């Protein structure tokens, strides 16, 4: 009749994502990028938490945007309580 099918131990592994999305740069999606006015910035860090990409970091003590990933949505500029972020054309 039917032949013995392989058990689950013999089955090959399924597709596993093996690259980090960090290698996929989404920065060219948007037309604008945030520009920080560090004089006005109060270091409240809200832009870091509101950024959908996680592209804004405070590792240097002040906000820095990673333009490799920033999609230019403008949430940071819209939400900054100090009005320290302005969206400008990329390039």
């Amino acid at each position: 009749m039917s032949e013995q099918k392989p058990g689950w131990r013999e089955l090959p592994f399924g597709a596993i994502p093996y690259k980090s999305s960090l290698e996929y740069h989404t920065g060219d999606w948007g037309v604008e990028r945030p520009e920080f006015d560090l004089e006005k910035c109060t270091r409240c860090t809200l832009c870091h938490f509101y950024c959908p990409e996680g592209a804004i970091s405070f590792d240097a003590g002040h906000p820095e945007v990673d333009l490799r990933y920033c999609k230019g949505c403008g949430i940071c500029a819209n939400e900054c309580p100090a009005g320290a972020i302005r969206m400008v054309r990329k390039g």
Partner: protein
Amino acid sequence: MSKAITLKEAVKKPDLLASGHRLCAGCAEPIIARLVLKASRGAIIATTATGCLEVATTIFPYSAWRIPWIHTAFENAAATASGIEAAWRAMRRKGRGPLAKYETLDVVAFAGDGGTYDIGLQALSGALERGHDFTYVLLDNEAYMNTGIQRSGGTPYCAWTTTSPAGTVIPGKREWKKPIDEIVIAHEIPYTATVSPAYPLDLMQKARAAFETEGPAFIHAISPCCRGWRFPPNKTIEVARLAVETCFFPLYECRVEDGRPIYKLSPPSLAIAKRPERKKPVEEYLKIQGRFRHLFRPERRGDLIERIQRWVDRRWEMLLEKAGL
């Protein structure tokens, strides 16, 4: 109990959801997912039901997850989470296996409103009833956005979607939003909370409380979708905040102690409860979104706006009663 979360500490914690995912610019889902993961205590395993978050973060061969992550079908995110938790307990008991060394394990399931209100409800209900120690995060963008804005059980009254189109015959969706929080609380699970990405500290504190809870915890997050709700991408947080300020989506947590649900309003909503004049009319929330445009143009549908306002007021009063305010 571990130390309370502060923004100052959390900003230093690396993101567990990496950049380079392909969600739309201005999407609220990665904001919520990042904040929830920032609140994790240590070892954490995530599973995501089919939805925007899953398909955009795991496009082969890339993955944006820096933690163990398991693919799930649309209907069984909660069942997969139960399985992870049961496997960890079994390995702990036997003292062998890759998970045996973790004293605590945060198991988190992310699902959209389609995967929770409609398709995943039975799996969720079963997992809550069995009492597995996991956290379920509902990313509520109020329609099936991933497949092209079809209505779901979470879509609010009068909202335009492609399967409830607003026109001369119907004014958008004709049914009300399903009260999922009450359905979940009725399971008498220890912790339920509603969160909005506009209040990141509140969100992280509730996620931490959910992880620390022994037993199932449910977090309902409102996740504005600029494509499906028809607003500019930079207004995402503004819309999420207006939902709270108009009491369309009040923030609270509910703990079940001795079989009784104890409701507690969170600071943004408590401020409105104490000073009712701060409550904004729901019209402000509707006006900013294109999916409610037919309520204002070509002519103002005051009757429908009034009906939505009454629904919001009634549910808000019911919540205040439950919270003893």
